[in-house]
């Protein structure tokens, strides 16, 4: 089982997070801490969460996304979700998160 990790990059007022591994109730707090630290440090206008590297996510992942969404919004920033796997997309739709946070597909992993 791959431990949840987050890789962050900041450039041109965009904070880019790429999450990998398995996100559940146990691992979510570990990545949450790093994401919050970066959000409060950079106070970015735009945040992107790339989800294509996630092997597993349950409702704890929804909590992670929604919690960050609220913090980013409070700092007058906006959040986008990038490249969710089909499994994650199903959970986002079920919870109605896709109506709250824009979900974009970059197709960068195709071809």
């Amino acid at each position: 089982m791959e431990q949840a990790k987050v890789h962050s990059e900041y450039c041109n007022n965009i904070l880019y997070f790429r999450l990998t591994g398995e996100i559940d109730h146990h691992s979510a707090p570990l990545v949450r801490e790093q994401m919050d630290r970066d959000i409060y440090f950079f106070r970015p206008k735009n945040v992107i969460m790339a989800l294509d590297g996630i092997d597993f996510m349950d409702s704890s992942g929804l909590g992670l996304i929604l919690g960050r969404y609220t913090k980013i919004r409070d700092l007058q920033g906006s959040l986008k979700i990038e490249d969710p796997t089909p499994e994650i997309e199903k959970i986002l739709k079920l919870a109605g998160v896709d109506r709250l946070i824009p979900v974009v597909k970059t197709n960068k992993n195709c071809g």
Partner: protein
Amino acid sequence: MIKAENQFELTLPALSENEGFARQCVSAFLLRFDPTVTELADLRTAVSEAVTNCVVHGYKGMSGGQIYISVRCFAGRKVVIRIKDKGCGMADPEKCREPLYTTDTSGERGGMGFAIMESFTDQMKVKTGVGKGTTVTLVKKLS
């Protein structure tokens, strides 16, 4: 009582670090029935929700409790997964089943656990009572 064609049982301490192990054990057992990728992903997620509920709500994060998992496979490719704790139980299970209902006040939990279990399986049953623990039964027929 109809006899299961194959089954396995697992008891493990209600620790958050065991959540991943629990869903992977169930997943490894189900692989022998050749489920589709979606069926396996759905059941893995549903099991993760149920096990997390035992840790977070059943035993309220306190150590010492056990989680009892059984997976039975019946004729016609019907899978029945039971996840049980002997924790505090729920006073109002119907309320807990409502999407977005959560007892969490930190804003870090979505209240979608039961909604996911219900939507990712064919049938979900909850047996609970205050002080009597909770048993969640998930049923799914594999194609």
